[in-house]
């Protein structure tokens, strides 16, 4: 294996800009080892990244790196020199390895999210939490949202203040377009706006013109009677010397104007004139303007100009005012929902990771900053609570760090950077060219530079910057293509007019391949349409045969759905082992799951004829008929009963077992789905809910990520491929329209310090184009979007190690500014032919060796580790004895009225019973006048004492307490015995064993105290029946212990309430 050599000198704080494949993780793990070599204790180093998987791999890599250097002198030498400590040898690395393994449980290598959650757990009361909290994963969070909405929606009664306000807000938020489907609307609202609300939960920021236009907005506030202006304009154009077509335009304009309400997209007729008027605004205001309609100029006189200007002002002003109001309405709606949600979910201890981060973000009113300084005031001191003394900070994927995340860590890192002792350090690594999470997770690539400048401004040279541009992943052919696309400063600048290309070009350095001998091919191929692109993917895979050559292979696409479809296509059409690494809705994406859900639905909702008939159309139909469950009554009874008694998982398992024989023998897929379905049901059971509707909902939302494995062709999104490398990469899904499309939804303007400045429901394009503030906002948003898209393409094109085939449709005359356009403008659009092995394909660009795949060495056999767990030989080892356990007291028989159990006073409280038992156990024998011995003590013991005493005094019970000759008594005597092959364990209340003169037992009586309320003879009989099993087992036990025959052992219930005995007859076996 070749190892990159970054020679490190020892600056304390390092920032690494690492291009794709240049060994980001390698640099990070080396840094970790370097810190160890300098004597840092492993538990004092924190290394944070974004995905759990990355964190896990990071740890494995450190250990394997140290283990390698500990047993191989050559590797030790390399590592030693890489970390700038050439004197170190295998023994030193072994020592470090030991230190790391011993501190394993205290290491802090993980995700930012889990690190934050850990901090929050340590400071609940400081953060306004109450005790433990759980983290809500995505589908759980959705379910919570639905619950909250349902609760909001089913509240009635006097419409209280809050509710009225909500309704008003809702009206304002949906002006002019009253919605029928409130649930759907709100759900959409929340998807789009909830995070924005939480970032700026103050109305001040929402739709506030003073914040948006601090200098005032000329359109707002103008009010006059439109009728006058309309009349003036109409009289002008009916008289003016203009063509019919123009006159028609004016007429249509006025008609459209009358019908239009602000907030709606202006119809064509309105927009046409509006556009012209705005373009000539200055002249219009001046009172003399020429407007060109359909290439014919028309001169407007003073009154016409004034009238038109007036109308335009009203339209634009009306639109802006409406948008402002809508924005505030949206805020109020969100606030209404949030109040509910907060109460029902967060306060019940269910937080999302985003909630946790928000809790920790210091922002004036909120949390206090974190510190390691025990003396600091108004700070949260972390060392003690976290059992940690963190000296060294390693941050991975820094370009994806959001400003919010940085704010939480900032004070701690400030302390490390400013630490005078020199014992602390800060290290971050990332690639601003791979910032593909800016819109999704608020990743903030600008932070990189800002932080660097910030610290270095205070302390010049505080942080050292390093650029890593040699790729240890990609061979030369690939690097050539990457440079040819992304190093084209001029072409990129033309494609991305905003700041996007500028930012890109500033950070760009040409890449080099650090593995020049890695042969391969990079090419841009073309296919006519989607079908052809997919077919080409299959063709290439069949030609190259990556898996047979032991190559890893990935096909990267833009969306999860595409991944699923394409993987299925490859499996179906090519019989290839392709796996979509996307989230699968395993509960509903197949007939089996759908039928199970129908089963539950039909049982819970017998009126659901769709579900009922659905069942009948599946093999379940015959099954139900077979079990006489084809009527709704029977089905409902059975399934509801099962679910309540056993939970969903067991119920599902039971049905699956019956269905199993109906699946085709080779149908591994449905069997796998069956297991996944049951596992999901198990997860749902843990919520304790038995609500079928909720379960069905849960299963519809439930998603599973297909497991990855190297021996398959992996189809995944580019986003998921980030951080991964494959020998062969295919990119067949790069079509699209506009690269710099800003995200839909509310416009959120942020200050340089990333706090929200204003929020606005943007008016449609025609209005914002003519407002400098809004136009600037949109421009910046588009630049950001463009940069992110460029990053996405970069990530896609830097995954390959040996070969990459980019497949797009021909660019041709298309004007779309999309990825193919970027390729065409950088690589050149010379349609031609590209050879890949035996294939001659349409293509425009290629480099490398078209026969690379035929020259590969045979793959090494992987070390096989046996997965089998061997068995031992039963005869040799001997089976440990195990028996069925029986407890006489649990041997319940007979029938009882359920109402008895549920009576509050009816049954005797268990502790009363225990107390009576305990007292009676004190009694060995009661001789003449012996009762009084107990009386004194027992009368102090309340009801139990009285009852016990009464039992001693009752003449009917005298036999219990009177000692026969040579009798022995066992009181509260435990026993263990084997009877009929079962292990019987229990405790006798009282047994009297009579013996003959030789000491042999001749007779025994088992007395069992029953303190329950017994009413009348019938009840006595029932009680005897109920305990017959128990007492007869006692009889057998006593027989074994005394060596008597069962017939010589009598069993008596001592009914303490009735103060009488009830004999339990011997049961035949």
């Amino acid at each position, binding site marked *: 294996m070749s190892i990159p050599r970054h020679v490190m000198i020892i600056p304390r704080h390092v920032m690494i800009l690492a291009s794709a494949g240049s060994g980001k993780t390698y640099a990070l793990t080396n840094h970790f080892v370097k810190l160890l070599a300098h004597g840092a204790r492993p538990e004092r180093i924190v290394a944070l990244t974004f995905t759990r998987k990355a964190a896990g791999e990071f740890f494995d890599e450190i250990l394997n790196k140290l283990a390698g250097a500990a047993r191989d002198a050559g590797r030790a030498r390399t590592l030693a020199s890489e970390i700038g400590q050439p004197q170190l040898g295998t023994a030193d690395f072994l020592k470090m390895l030991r230190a790391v393994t011993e501190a394993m449980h205290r290491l802090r290598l993980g995700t930012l999210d889990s690190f934050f959650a850990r901090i929050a757990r340590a400071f609940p009361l400081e953060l306004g939490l109450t005790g433990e909290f759980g983290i809500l994963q995505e589908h759980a969070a959705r379910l919570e949202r639905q619950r909250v909405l349902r609760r909001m929606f089913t509240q009635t009664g006097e419409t209280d203040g809050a509710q009225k306000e909500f309704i008003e807000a809702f009206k304002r938020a949906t002006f002019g377009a009253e919605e029928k489907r409130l649930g759907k609307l709100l759900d959409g609202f929340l998807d789009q706006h909830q995070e924005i609300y939480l970032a700026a939960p103050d109305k001040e920021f929402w739709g506030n013109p003073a914040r948006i236009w601090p200098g005032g907005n000329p359109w707002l506030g103008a009010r006059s009677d439109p009728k006058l202006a309309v009349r003036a304009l109409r009289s002008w154009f009916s008289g003016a010397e203009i063509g019919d077509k123009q006159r028609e335009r004016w007429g249509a304009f006025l008609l459209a104007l009358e019908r239009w309400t602000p907030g709606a997209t202006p119809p064509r007729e309105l927009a046409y004139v509006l556009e012209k008027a705005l373009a000539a605004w200055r002249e219009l205001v001046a009172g003399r303007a020429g407007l060109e309609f359909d290439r014919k100029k028309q001169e407007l006189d003073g009154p016409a100009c004034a009238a038109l200007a007036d109308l335009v002002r009203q339209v634009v002003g009306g639109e802006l005012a409406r948008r402002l109001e809508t924005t505030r309405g949206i805020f109020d709606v969100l606030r209404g929902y949030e109040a509910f949600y907060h109460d029902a979910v967060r306060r019940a201890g269910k937080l999302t990771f985003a909630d946790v981060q928000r809790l920790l973000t210091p922002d004036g009113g909120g949390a206090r900053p974190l510190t390691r300084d025990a003396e600091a005031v108004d700070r949260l001191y972390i060392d003690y609570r976290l059992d940690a003394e963190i000296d060294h900070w390693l941050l991975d994927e820094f370009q994806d760090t959001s400003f919010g995340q940085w704010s939480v860590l900032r004070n701690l890192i400030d302390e490390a950077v400013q630490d005078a002792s020199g014992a602390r350090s800060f290290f971050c690594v990332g690639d601003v060219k791979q910032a593909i999470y800016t819109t999704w997770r608020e990743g903030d690539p600008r932070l990189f530079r800002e932080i660097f400048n910030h610290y270095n401004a205070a302390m010049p040279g505080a942080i050292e910057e390093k650029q890593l541009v040699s790729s240890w992943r990609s061979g030369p052919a690939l690097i050539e293509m990457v440079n040819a696309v992304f190093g084209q400063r001029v072409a990129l600048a033309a494609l991305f007019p905003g700041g996007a290309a500028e930012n890109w070009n500033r950070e760009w350095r040409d890449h080099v391949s650090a593995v020049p001998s890695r042969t391969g091919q990079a090419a841009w191929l073309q296919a006519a349409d989607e079908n052809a692109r997919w077919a080409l993917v299959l063709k290439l895979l069949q030609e190259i045969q990556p898996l047979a050559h032991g190559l890893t292979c990935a096909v990267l696409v833009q969306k999860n759905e595409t991944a699923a479809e394409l993987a299925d296509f490859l499996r179906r059409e090519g019989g290839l082992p392709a796996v979509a690494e996307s989230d699968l809705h395993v509960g509903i994406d197949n007939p089996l799951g759908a039928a199970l859900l129908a089963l539950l639905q039909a049982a819970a909702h017998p009126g659901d004829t769709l579900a009922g008939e659905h069942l009948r*159309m599946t093999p379940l139909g015959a099954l139900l008929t077979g079990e006489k469950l084809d009527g709704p009554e029977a089905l409902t009874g059975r399934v509801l009963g099962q679910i309540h008694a056993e939970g969903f998982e067991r119920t599902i398992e039971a049905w699956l077992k019956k269905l199993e024989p109906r699946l085709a023998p080779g149908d591994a897929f449905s069997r796998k789905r069956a297991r996944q379905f049951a596992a999901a049901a198990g997860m749902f059971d843990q919520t304790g809910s038995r609500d079928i509707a909720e379960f069905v909902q849960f299963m519809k939302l439930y998603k599973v990520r297909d497991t990855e494995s190297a021996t398959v062709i992996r189809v995944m999104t580019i986003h998921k491929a980030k951080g991964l490398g494959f020998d062969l990469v295919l990119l067949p899904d790069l079509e699209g329209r506009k690269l710099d499309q800003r995200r839909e939804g509310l416009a959120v303007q942020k200050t340089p310090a990333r706090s929200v400045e204003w929020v606005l429901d943007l008016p449609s394009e025609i209005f914002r184009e003519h407002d400098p503030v809004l136009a600037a906002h949109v421009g910046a948003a588009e630049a950001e979007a463009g940069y992110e898209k460029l990053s996405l393409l970069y990530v896609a094109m830097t995954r390959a190690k040996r070969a990459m085939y980019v497949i797009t449709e021909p660019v041709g005359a298309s004007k779309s500014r999309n990825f193919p356009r970027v390729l065409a403008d950088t690589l050149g659009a010379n349609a031609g032919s590209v050879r890949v092995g035996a294939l001659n394909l349409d293509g425009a660009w290629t480099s490398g060796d078209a026969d690379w795949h035929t020259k590969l060495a045979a793959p090494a056999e992987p070390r096989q580790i046996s997965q089998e767990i061997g068995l031992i030989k039963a005869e040799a080892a001997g089976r440990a004895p195990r028996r069925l356990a029986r407890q006489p007291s649990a041997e319940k028989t007979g029938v009882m009225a359920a109402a008895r159990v549920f009576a509050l006073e009816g049954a005797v409280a268990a502790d009363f019973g225990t107390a009576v038992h305990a007292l009676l156990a004190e009694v060995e024998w009661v001789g003449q006048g012996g009762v009084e011995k107990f009386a004194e003590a027992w009368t102090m013991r309340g009801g139990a004492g009285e009852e016990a005493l009464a039992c001693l005094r009752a003449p009917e019970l005298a036999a219990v307490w009177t000692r026969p000759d040579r009798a022995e008594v066992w009181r509260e005597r435990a026993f263990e015995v084997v009877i009929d092959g079962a292990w019987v364990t229990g405790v006798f209340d009282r047994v009297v064993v009579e013996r003959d003169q030789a000491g042999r037992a001749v007779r025994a009586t088992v007395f069992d105290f029953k303190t329950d309320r017994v009413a009348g003879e019938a009840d006595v009989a029932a009680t005897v029946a109920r305990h017959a099993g128990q007492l007869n087992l006692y009889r057998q036990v006593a027989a074994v212990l005394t060596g008597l025959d069962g017939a010589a052992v009598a069993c008596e219930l001592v009914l303490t309430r009735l103060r009488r005995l009830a004999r339990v007859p011997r049961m035949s076996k």
Partner: protein
Amino acid sequence: MRIERTRTFAFVCLSVDSPPLTARRHFISWDRPLLPQAVAFLAGEWKGDGPLDLSTLLVVVPTQQSGRRLREALAEHAAARGQAAFPPRVFTPDRLITQGLGPDVAARLESLLAWTEILRALDLEAFRDVFPVDPPARDFNWALRLAREFTHLQAVLAEAGLRLADVNGKTGESFCEAARWQQLGELERRHAEKLAALGLRDAQAAKIAAAKNPSPLANVGKIILLATPDPLPLALDVIAVHARTLTLEVVIFAPPSEADAFDGWGRPLPPGWEHRALVLPEFEQRVHLCADPAAQAERIVAVAQGYGSPEGLLGVGVADHEVLPLLENALIRAGLAAYNPAGRARLDDGLYPLLASLAALAREPSFAAVEALARCPDFLAFLQARLGREFSAARWLEGLDELHARHLPADLSTARAQAVKLKKYPGLMPALAAIDELCATLANDEFSAGVSAALGMIFGNRQLDLVRAGDARLEDSATAWMEILRECAAAGARFPGPAKIAWWDLALQLFGESLRNEDKPAGALELQGVLELLFEDAPHLAVAGFNDGAVPDSVAGDPFLPESIREKLGLKTNAARFARDAYVLQALAACRAQGGRIDLLFGKTSAAGDPLRPSRLLLRCADAELPARIAFLFRAPEQAQANPSWTRAWRLTPRHVAAPGPVAVTALRRWLECPFRFYLRQVLGLAAVDPAKNELDARDFGALCHAALEAMGHEAALRDCTDAAVLRQFLLAELERHTRACYGEALSLPLIIQLESARQRLARAAEVQASERAAGWVIEQVEKKISVEIGGLLVKGKIDRIDRHAETGAVRVLDYKTSDSPASPRDTHLHAPRQGETPPVWAVFELDGRSRAWTDLQLPLYRHALAAEFPGAVACGYFNLPKAVGGTGLALWDEYTPELHAAAVRCAEGVCAAIRAGEFWPPNEQVRTDYDEFASLFHQGVAASVAWEEAKP
């Protein structure tokens, strides 16, 4: 048998609390399993000539399951000689300290309530070190959550005999949280005071006090601390006191040569185990890396299946609780019985959901609570008993759904008021009345009495046959619940504060977290915790979940008791846990070295995909071996099976039934859209129930608007009205009346908003109507029923409205449309066939030189039906009431020509003939999933999902 009796020790012990000098340590060698040796040790000289009587011994074992094992082994031992045993008293350390605390000790419930009272009344300003910020709301739930936290804290400290107030005394000078603990101590003092005022003692305080002065053990001559490597410190205090008068023997499962590795109590000494290399022979064959918990479960199941009947041969340990449920289910799936000796939380009991829905009902008699209760089997049984043979659970649920769909009742009383109207479901009324009665019962009395009465009502007629498993389980659950209820009743007298619903929350919580101990099924594999494994004697042992954090478990970051302070307080530390588990692992491996086998499984990730690490114990090897171990343990897990490709389990076989009688005009549209869906909907009559419905759907909404408009048409006084205000007033009043009639007085949020939307639309419609009348159009008929025979099929419909012009006499047919955006008749009736779409020839015709196909036939058929009554030309169109009020108005079909009409009739004939001929295939594949009411039936293509031809009779 080799039991070494070693000399009485003067221990060199790290902890101050070493056992008394008289204690003896015995070593039971770990070259064979513990259990048989321990039994032989206890039985001593017993000859088998009478019962094996060990009743004067007190044996302390690590866990309940260990005790169970020991007693079983004693029974076995005695039985081998035809005898039975009087066993020793077998205690866990915990039992030792909770033993006989007396009746004045506060129950958990009381302790929690005392905390909540204190916390709610607290002046937080005086406790700023505990509560640096004000909580968002100081309600009962807040207090209860904190109360649980504090109760837990007290319990943890009590393990070492400490109270909150004792902490500062142990932490030394410069303790950074001294002020906080001082305040916590004060809180605890108030808590104790509160309890004292009620005549109660705090349970932890009572334990600590009792440990200093335990009540004497009657009839016990000797205490044996048996293979208990991790006893609670407080339990040792108890033993130490007893040992002043009784003999104490400490039995350690280890060879005597290991004596120095244990303290006098038999606890492994951390220094001895921290760096020791554990002997784990054939490491790479015995330690197994698995991808995740499910993979671990599968491997263990495979071993168990390998044995056929594994009981007694295979012992199973589960260190990671995440693996437990998966393993349990995997075993059951494989047809093997499993048993979890730890018991199962009562949250899983069948009684729980019934109680939870009663609680919901008590909180608020919402309709959702009614629906939840309605599906509890016990409640259904109650209705059955109460309403007699007439009652049908299925009909009742169906009626309830119907009630929900039609009237969206928000609560029980609205539901009852509306149920009267659903004549089809006579069972609804009495069943709802029963629920109302339950509500009243719950509301009437104080909490416990109310609940008990309500349950008495529900179960009043049930007989429990205890031989039947289900009934026995119910009896068991019910007993446990009633126990809690009685506790609540008692506590209620002492704590009058909490509201009824707070009692519900408390009681349900206590019930849900209490454990049910099930009987071990015959032949079941026991799934045991690691500490219990010392007493497992099966020759083959497999332990799953051998990951760091599970073995040893470790605490990291605690809001009150971080590791550093634990150490100072003498609580269990990570180092002590490590030593204990290292010892246990060594002992488990050693005793199976000959003839046995131990396998350790660990996961690479958790079920949720979080990366996991192998237990640190697995790295306890000689340094020279470490790099190889790392490579072995930290490799990537072996390839999982490649994922099978999507396969259809089966195709649906729909019933084939004869075409129906008359069809609705509007249904023809469905056939044109998709004949197969038409079949499902119109012929088979399939319709789904949406239990989540909480607002009007498009049809409900349309019906409300229609009703008002219809009323307007009927109203003679408005015939000639051209005053928009009058019309508006009328329409809004009608709307209001219909809404209230259908949805009751108390409307829920979405209904209020939707009603508002309807109002806006109708208000605008009034203006349109006024101007239409002013233009001469008079409403002539409304809701006119029509029926025509087409192609041998009777087609029926209802025309919203027919207008006639006062002057010209012209006639027009109008249909009200309340869809979101205004509809144009032409666009709704016709479409240009898409590429690849091949409609039947009779559905296609040429219009302006382009090919057009019919989507809908509504308006043409109206005209067709009216042809006799109105022979002249009849105009047709829509009266649109869309969501943007600007779009309200008439949309007439202007270019409606006779040719068009003829084409429409031809198409209608085609459709009707097709329906009559049973032509419902092929389906339309283009329907968007989110608009397809039958989407749940289809996967990867509609035609591919259905075996239509094959299912033909």
